[in-house]
């Protein structure tokens, strides 16, 4: 089974677009290829738009999960600089 332990976690609760993606993107940029970023957020639209944009930028979305009434957790693996 694939190891999905995050190498970096960010909490972007309270942020809205486009800052949700700005923060997520800067976090990915600071990481090495193959590493995994975990994102905690509470802005529903970003739970859809961040995975889509990450894929458009060549990253791999491992998980999109609603963990309670307000929050989502995303897991993104860096595939591309």
């Amino acid at each position, binding site marked *: 089974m694939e190891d999905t332990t995050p190498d970096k976690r960010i909490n972007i609760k309270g942020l809205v677009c486009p*800052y949700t993606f*700005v*923060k997520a993107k800067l976090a990915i940029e600071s990481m090495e290829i193959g590493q995994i970023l975990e994102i905690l957020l509470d802005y529903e639209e970003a739970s859809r738009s961040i995975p889509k944009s990450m894929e458009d930028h060549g990253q791999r979305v491992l998980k999109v999960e609603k963990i309670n009434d307000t929050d989502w957790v995303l897991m993104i693996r860096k595939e591309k600089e």
Partner: protein
Amino acid sequence: MDFTEEQLQRYSRHIILPEVGGKGQAKIASAKVILVGAGGLGCPVGYYLTAAGVGTIALIDNDNVEMSNLQRQIAHNVHTIGMPKVESAQKAFNALNPEVNIVPLNIRISKDNIIDLIKDYDIVVDGSDNFPTRYLVNDACVMAKKPLVSGAILRFEGQVTTIIPGEGHCYRCLFEAPPPAGLVPSCQEAGVLGVLPGVIGGLQATEVLKLILGKGEPLKGQLLIYDALKTSFRKVRVPRNPLCPVCGDNPTITELSDPNEEYCSLS
């Protein structure tokens, strides 16, 4: 580069572009660009590069702001009439983005100072309004191996080209020598549509950012010609001329010279 919250907000639309990102924005922030002319072209080029967050922007111009400039030179205004253009533009650019280091140089560019002026900068932008300066800037950039983004405007037509010494043409490959003064339009013939420098300056600023980012294809080896009346853009291929007097295989121009002909300029 660690961004402050303010920088994240200011540059967010850059950072989310795949071609820019945080790394590209950091390149922009460390770039140093020098603009020759703070007039029709220098104003929009400087404004957009300031907005983009270019680290240092030097402005060279020894003119003062006049009422007749305000039809197109958008960094100046009625309150800065009489002030040196470089100071007027510095005020406008600083108000837009105080973290950009604007270096106002209220001097006339010449063969004696140009090499020293451009040596600390990554990219030179020519927005000058006369042929002698245009050729001086070209020759100096070829000799100092500095990338040059050249723009020119007259009436309803503008031109842009990007010169990367050693990698393509230079201005003299295009037009070997300045036209004789008598063939240059006189002041009363040399009108210009006020928005034209906005279009051409916008294209020059785009070229500068592409060079800083190392993205896309610069206008090297090409001349872009914009006709505002027809709303047409034409690209003309400009190969390097091996017989070019300054960048050719056996250059005959090996030192800079100040032209002595008087030109009636558009300033």
